[in-house]
């Protein structure tokens, strides 16, 4: 039974991906492109050579952070849809630290990342506090704060830290930039992201606090009766999840973007939620899904050049993956479906014995 559950939780997303690609191919064919050529150029664009792999990993890095951000909070039963805002506020704090304080080199990198962590955590504290003490809907509040954060970043790059006539901030000094891995587009930010993912995995599944946090997420009332401080865990999960996003924001600024500009981080928050859901809140699976999403995006540019199919077809494929995965996971939980699966496995076991 246990094994069948595990198998299903992998099979459903895989089937969803295949189904989404099938529909994507049908759409491409409908647009007059050869789906096989399109898929091939998609693959070459994303993984064709080492340089492209580097670009894919670089694109995946911010998504890993927002994915882990959504994943961590939802493990505690709260829906943090504010990953984007926390990411942005983190990058704004980081940008200020990197360009205005005059510090440079390795200590600057550490301080900048810390500034991002702190800012992201504090930004996430707002919906956390309102949830815990005012009983308010954390989803609406965290989304509203996304808009506020984006507009605030706008003030920063059009006014306060603007450089020259173009609405953008000055660039991070060269010594504060994160170094690239083997000269590829991917930087140490990617390694930081992987480490954060591993840490979260360890915390959630191998520590008692992590167990309690998951218990709160599964059943708040039961956790309360067990004497776990539900409020404290909710606040904690919000702050940590915001801190992860904030770290992501500063790592993205120091590693890839170097300056704040219009459109920075747009859509990363909801992407993160989508990835966490497809990965069924597993931190390591979230990383894989993030790389898959990034590959679709990077590859779609090559695909557009080769076949003329607009890059937004990759957004459709992504969206279909989430639509199918969530529906599929719900379907396998239905009692009729469960009974059918149990029958299949029972038959196999009797054959085996």
């Amino acid at each position, binding site marked *: 039974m246990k094994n069948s559950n595990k198998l299903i939780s992998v099979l459903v997303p895989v089937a969803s991906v295949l189904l989404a690609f099938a529909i994507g191919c049908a759409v491409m064919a409908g*647009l007059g492109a050869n789906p096989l050529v399109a898929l091939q150029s998609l693959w070459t664009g994303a993984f064709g050579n080492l340089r492209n792999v580097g670009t894919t990993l670089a694109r995946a890095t911010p998504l890993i952070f927002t994915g882990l951000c959504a994943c961590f909070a939802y493990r505690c039963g709260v*829906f943090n*849809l504010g990953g984007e805002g926390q990411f942005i506020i983190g990058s704004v704090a980081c940008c200020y630290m990197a360009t205005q304080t005059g510090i440079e080199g390795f200590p600057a990198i550490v301080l900048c990342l810390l500034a991002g962590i702190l800012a992201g955590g504090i930004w996430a504290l*707002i919906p956390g506090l*309102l949830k815990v003490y*005012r*009983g*308010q*809907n954390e*989803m*609406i*509040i965290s*989304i*509203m*704060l996304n*808009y*506020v954060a984006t*507009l*605030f970043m*706008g*003030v920063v790059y*059009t*006014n306060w830290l603007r450089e020259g006539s173009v609405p953008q901030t000055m660039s991070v000094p060269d010594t504060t930039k994160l170094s690239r891995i083997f000269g590829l587009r991917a930087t140490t930010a990617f390694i930081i992201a992987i480490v954060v993912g591993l840490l979260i995995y360890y915390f959630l599944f191998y520590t008692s606090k992590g167990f309690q946090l998951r218990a709160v997420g599964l059943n708040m009332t039961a956790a309360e009766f067990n004497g776990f401080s539900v409020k404290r865990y909710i606040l904690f999960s919000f702050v940590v999840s915001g801190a992860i996003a904030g770290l992501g924001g500063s790592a993205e600024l120091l590693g890839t973007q170097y300056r704040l500009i219009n459109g920075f981080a747009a859509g990363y928050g*909801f*992407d993160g*939620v*989508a990835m966490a*859901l497809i990965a069924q809140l597993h931190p390591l699976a979230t990383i894989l899904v993030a790389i898959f999403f990034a590959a679709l995006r990077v590859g779609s540019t090559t695909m557009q050049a080769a076949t003329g199919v*607009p890059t*937004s*077809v990759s*957004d*459709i494929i*992504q*969206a*279909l993956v*989430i*639509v199918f995965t*969530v*529906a599929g*996971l*719900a*379907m396998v*939980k*239905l*009692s009729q479906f469960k009974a059918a699966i149990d029958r299949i496995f029972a038959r196999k076991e009797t054959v085996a014995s």
Partner: protein
Amino acid sequence: MSWDFISNLLLASVRMATPLIFLSLAELYSQRAGLVHIGLEGLAAIGSLVGFLVSLITGSPMLGVLAGALAGILVNMIFAYATISLCAEQIVYGMAINIFAPALAAFIYRVYFGAGSTLVQVTLMNNLSTTLGITSDNFLLKLLLDQTPMVYLAYALVIFTAIYFNKTKSGLNYKAVGEYPKAAATLGINVIGVKYIACIICGALAGMGGAFLTTCYSNTYVDGNVAGRGFIALAAVIFGRWSGGGVLLACLFFGFCDALQIRLQVGSFGVPYQFFQMIPYIATVVVLALIGMKKAGPKGAGKPYLREDR
């Protein structure tokens, strides 16, 4: 502050409240049947794109709105099937719709206009005063007549909703589905049927709310033009205590914030305009924070309904 400023502000408030009224009513009908729908932002996005395209092709904004409603229904049927028949978690699926529908809208736009397209504009829906040929500077006349038919429709829907949920048997049955579906089912109400109908109404209203943005407010479509209204509408339903009249007042308040933001931007006062743009969002957070814990929503909202459960 001149009278001109204030009267323009009030007129704009009514205009800006209209899409919110459609979206909030969509949420209200959904939640009253026990379905919490956080995907309105997505439904409005597809409604706004389809409304734009159809009014561009046919030249009729009315048809645009109709098509927007239809698109909203179609996309919402995915939500309906997943949450009602497959019992998927409503919040999670609403989020999926929020990701899927805007992506679909953006894709259709790219495909239809090609990559390097110029800005395409449509003619907006006429105000009643233009149709009637009445021009006046009187504030009250402007308030009553300088509005698109969509505004009157929104108010008519609010009145209908208030009467329907409180005074009709069918409305009470509908509410029962959201409060306690099992009891409703024992009384012979078709719970699943009501939930599906709720999704049709919700999709249509949300699609119309989105279409309003491209047929009555701004004459072009841009990605992200719904700008959080789908979520503000959620807040408006909570603020309005799940009643037609309450929701209307909440929407007028948020509409006022939106109008104020636009008016202040024009004045500028040396403050970066983004701070004014924050007003509707911050107002939403503040309002929610002030309402506090009081729970008044349908008790069955958010929970899946499994017929076999005993």
